[in-house]
Structures are given as structure tokens and as C-alpha cells.
């Protein structure tokens, strides 16, 4: 649990006249992380795809060939063709355009809910792990209560109470993921809290706030970062589930989950109606998951040393 979080910390015997350390200029850690990530092909491809998806969501209005709700009664449920590569739906709307425009909704809900869970959950985990005792007991029992509900059921309950709509979907998914972040953070903090360098900083007079922000959180961060990536995958999925159930964004604005729900009725006549939004979900979720795995490999110090060729 209290493993040395340093890469390449080889306790090699130095000669009496110790040479100054390696000649290479010190690289900031995040650059090193990025470099290693780039050498992991799966994670690198996932990251690139995700960047493209995000760009697509940001520039959706420019990229989409048609508007989201431009109907053409003469083009109902057309199969994929040159003018409509993903086909059309029952109102003659271009599915490609709606998938592109739906990305913004899905990702916005995903990012916002994970951001909420990240901030609240990390704060709770940090307090519970750092202060321990009754703070830990109180906060973590609360998290256990949240954990006891099936995630989607809890989200549905929250939306049912507060009403459907993107804002409430964000809140619902966010609350569902708070306990996961709280647990991951707490576990990580429990290990870091006992590190000698934390005690050393206390011995020179550092305050709790300083210890937490300068030493504990940065060193406890890797699992939290990994969890963020993986949670994004689940959040996109949860948003789709809520939309599918009609608890997320309202029609007629496109969202991937909503399109799945609408296409379900025509699945025997128009496979493209459900397959393309479904593919968008699969690709996004898969990429977040693979990126999360890659980050885990890179941020785990032992793995990291291995991948860096052991020498660093």
C-alpha cells in the first residue's frame, strides 16, 4: 500500500564521489506521462479518436450537413446513400447530422456529470481519508448508502423527483458516481497520508491545507485520473440509458440515447436508424475505457518504470 511512488528508485550504491545526476534536462511529469501514453498504441489511438469526437461535438453546427430538425417527408426512412450516408429517420431527417449534433448533448452530459462526481467525490474521499476517525465513518457510511442503490435506478429516482431534462440528468448521473470517486480517492489518500514525506512536511510546519493540496492530492491523483476516464465511459452510457427511457434531453433535440429509443420502433425496417447512434456510443465508451486502461498502465509507477526501459 505504501509503495515507493517513485519511478526508477533503484537504491543503487553510489560511489563515494557522487556524480551529479543525469545530464538530461528534467522533464515535467505530465510531459513524461504524455510521452509514455503516446507509446501505448491502444491508448494513443483512443485519445486521438476522443479528441476527434470532442471536436465534432464542439463544431457540430458547422460539421453537420443538415440542421437537426430539418424534415423532408419525401425521404422517410431512406437507407444510407451518397446524400445521406447514415440514412434518414421516419421524419426524413439526416441521421448523420443528428449523430453529429447528438454528440454535443451526450458528451456535455457525460463531462458535466463526471466533473460533478469528480469534484464532490474527491473532496469527500480526501476528507475521509486524511482526517479518518469519525469524519471517515460519517462520510463513507453516507457513500455506502448511495452505493447500495443500483446506479441507473438511483439516477431514474433522482430524475423522477426533479423532473426530466439535461440539467437533472447531469445531477443524477453525477450523484451516482460520487461514491466511486470518494472510495477511489480515500483508498489512495490512506496510502499517501502515511508516507514519510508527508510527515516530513508536517515537521517543518506545513498546515493541513498545505499538506493536502501540495503533497497528498498530487500523489494520490493517478487512480483518480484513471477513474475519471473510465467514469466518462459509463456516464455517456448512463446518459444514453436515461435518454432511452425518456428521462434525459427532450425531443426533438438529438441525443444518442434518444435516437436509439426512437429507432427501436423501426428496427426491422431501418437498421441504420439504431446502428449509427449505437456505434457512436460504442466507439466513445470503448475509447474512454481503453484510454483509462492506458492511463492506469502509465500512471502506475512500477508499470511506468518497466515501460520507460527501466533506466529512468
Amino acid at each position, binding site marked *: 500500500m505504501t509503495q515507493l511512488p517513485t519511478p526508477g528508485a533503484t537504491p543503487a550504491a553510489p560511489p563515494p564521489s557522487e556524480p551529479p*545526476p543525469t545530464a538530461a534536462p528534467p522533464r515535467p511529469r505530465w510531459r513524461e506521462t504524455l510521452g509514455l501514453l503516446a507509446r501505448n498504441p491502444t491508448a494513443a489511438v483512443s485519445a486521438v479518436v476522443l479528441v476527434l469526437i470532442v471536436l465534432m461535438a464542439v463544431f457540430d453546427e458547422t460539421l453537420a450537413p443538415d440542421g437537426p430538425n430539418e424534415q423532408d417527408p419525401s425521404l422517410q426512412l431512406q437507407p444510407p446513400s451518397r446524400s445521406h450516408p447514415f440514412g434518414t429517420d421516419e421524419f426524413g431527417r439526416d441521421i448523420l447530422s443528428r449523430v453529429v449534433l447528438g454528440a454535443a448533448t451526450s458528451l456535455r452530459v457525460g463531462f458535466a456529470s463526471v466533473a460533478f462526481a469528480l469534484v464532490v467525490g474527491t473532496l469527500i474521499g480526501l476528507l475521509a481519508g486524511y482526517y479518518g476517525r469519525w469524519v471517515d465513518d460519517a462520510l463513507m457510511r453516507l457513500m455506502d448508502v448511495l452505493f447500495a442503490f443500483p446506479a441507473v435506478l438511483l439516477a431514474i429516482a433522482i430524475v423522477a423527483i426533479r423532473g426530466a431534462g439535461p440539467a437533472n440528468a447531469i445531477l443524477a448521473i453525477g450523484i451516482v458516481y460520487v461514491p466511486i470517486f470518494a472510495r477511489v480517492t480515500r483508498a489512495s489518500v490512506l496510502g499517501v497520508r502515511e508516507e514519510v514525506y508527508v510527515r516530513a512536511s508536517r515537521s517543518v510546519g506545513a498546515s493541513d491545507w498545505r499538506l493536502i493540496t501540495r503533497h497528498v492530492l498530487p500523489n494520490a491523483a493517478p487512480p483518480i485520473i484513471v477513474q475519471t476516464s473510465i467514469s466518462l465511459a459509463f456516464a455517456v452510457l448512463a446518459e444514453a440509458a436515461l435518454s432511452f427511457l425518456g428521462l434525459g434531453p427532450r425531443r426533438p433535440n438529438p441525443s444518442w440515447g434518444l435516437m436509439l429509443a426512437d429507432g427501436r420502433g423501426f428496427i426491422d425496417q431501418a437498421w441504420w436508424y439504431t446502428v449509427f447512434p449505437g456505434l457512436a456510443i460504442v466507439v466513445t465508451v470503448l475509447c474512454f475505457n481503453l484510454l483509462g486502461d492506458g492511463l492506469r498502465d502509465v500512471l502506475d509507477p512500477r508499470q511506468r518504470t518497466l515501460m520507460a526501459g527501466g533506466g529512468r
Partner: protein
Amino acid sequence: MTSTTQEVLVSARGLEVHFPIRSGGALRRTTGVLRAVDGVDLDVYRGETLGLVGESGCGKSTLGNALLRLVPPTGGTVAFDGADVTGMGRRELRELRRRAGMVFQDPFASLDPRRTVAQTVAEPLEVHGLHPGRQARAARVRELLQLVGLDPGVAARYPHEFSGGQRQRVGIARALAGEPDFLVCDEAIASLDVSVQAQVLNLLRRLQRQLGLTLLFISHDLSAVRHVSDRIAVMYLGRVVEVGPAAAVAAEPQMPYTRALLSAVPLPHPRLERSRQRIVLRGDVPSPSRVPSGCRFRTRCPDVFEPCPDVDPALQPVGSAPGHVAACHLHGVVGTPVERERPDAPVDAGDPAARR
């Protein structure tokens, strides 16, 4: 304590650090008490190096931590330069942290891997608002690195780029940044290679003279302690059992435990080494959760006799050197009578007739 008119910088009286032993499970009942430090009286004089020795688990480190209130004492008092450490408020405690530093055992664990050497060494400066301004701080960091024999050019590097000895120098630079009066070196050389140990030891001695530091040098390495210390304090099972000038303690140990400890040190001279008589103690150290009644060393002492289980020995002047004290009934039965039949203490102290 006696003779010397030197000024006392740090003083412990009846200092106790007891840890509750909790059972597992949801109830977490306290099932016992671990007496890591159990009634320590100790003075550290300004400007001296006091060596604190004892075997593993005897409470040396806990004592060092308790003196700086890095571990909260459960009883007794600590005074630092006349101020009561145990009752300090937030502001006073911060000033104590500036005036009293600590060097830790493992240089691979005591530096934050995500912070550069400069950030680590500058932390006390930031915390205490010393040398304000970017440039002034950077200059002070360079100065500190030079002071501990490191190239100031390494300031921007991360700890994993350094060797153990270099890291320990960084740790020392951090401890010195606030210009402390008092430095606790908690096994500061124990995890270094032997060749590097000597370097760091000499660095500490040089710094002590140069900066007029008061040093508490905690170690299980008697040779190292003898090399650096003005006085030596010997600890056994949470209690200081003998204190005196280094030469006196080394040459004429007055307590059987100290004698046994010293007899375990190999001598450099082959002839002397051949004639060295080792005193091998019987049995293991009792658990600090089951401290024997009376003299806590009696279960292993070769010289145990009648009063040992009944009277808790107090430190009393012994030997010829001034300031040499030991807690042992062989020098006269002095101390607090105790009940022999303590339920948590083994009664059998060996055969009283075995007295030599």
C-alpha cells in the same frame, strides 16, 4: 541534571506516549496499551550532541517525535527553550516547527517524488514566510544546497534522480532551511551505504559546529553514536535507563543493559577484539504492552536481585564522571515501590540467588 551549568534547550519530564491497542472488528474496543515511551526524563543541552541508543522497538523514534510533538504525548511534559510544548497553540507550534527540525531515516521515502529539490527545500521558507520573493528564496535554496555539499544546479531536479546520500543531504537542507536550533536525526544514516554513512555523519558534525546546532542523534549504531555524541542516553523498553558523558558511558557503563549493549560492538583492534567478552542477554525484549513490574530490564538482567521486581528504579548519580546517571538498584535502591503482582507483568524474574 547535574554538574554542568549548561543551558537546557529541550527537557522532557515523565514523558509518556501510550498507544491504545484496538481489537479488530467493528467495535474497535481498546484491549491494551502499548507503552512506546513510558516515563522519560531527559534534558538536551544547548549546543550539544546527545546520542540516543537502544535496540529496535525501544521507543527511540517515538521519543524523538514526541519531543517535537509530531506524535502527541499522552502524559508528562516537554519544554523547548522554556516553553511548554504540549500546551502550544497553533502559532507557537509553527514557530517550534521552524526552530526544531527532523532528519528522517529513509531518504527514499522522505522526499515527495512529485516535487523538485528546490520545492522541497523551499517548503519551510514558504511555510514560515522566510526570505520572501522568488529570487531571495531561490538564492537561499542555493545557499542551503551548498551548505550540505550539493551542487546548487540540481535544484530543478526530482528526487528519483539522486542517490541515497544525495537525497539525505536534500533532507538535511530542508531541515535546516528555517534556521533551527534543534535537530532530531532519527536513524539518519541507518539506510545509507557504509561509505556514505561516514560522509553524512561528518556533514552533520560540521553543520553542528558551523551553525551551533543542538542535535539529538537517534541510532542503534553505537559506534556512530560514540563518534558524534557529547553525551549518550540509553533507552530500554520506553524508558531512559542511563545517561552520561559519551566517554564515561562508553568506558564505564553503569547499568547491566548498557554493558551488554556495548559488549556487542566489535572492536577495531584485533587483539582487543579477541579478548572482547560478549554479554549475551537471555530471552527477548518483553512487549511494550506487557512491561515488567519494577525494573523493566529485570527479566533479562544478569544481575537481578530482590528489589528489582518491587521498586521502579529512578535515575541516580553513578560512576565517577559528573552528570552520569543510571536507573539501577545495583547502585542503591532508589525509586518508586510498585506492586509486584501486576496482572499484565510476568512475575518470575529469574532466580534471585543468581546474583553475582
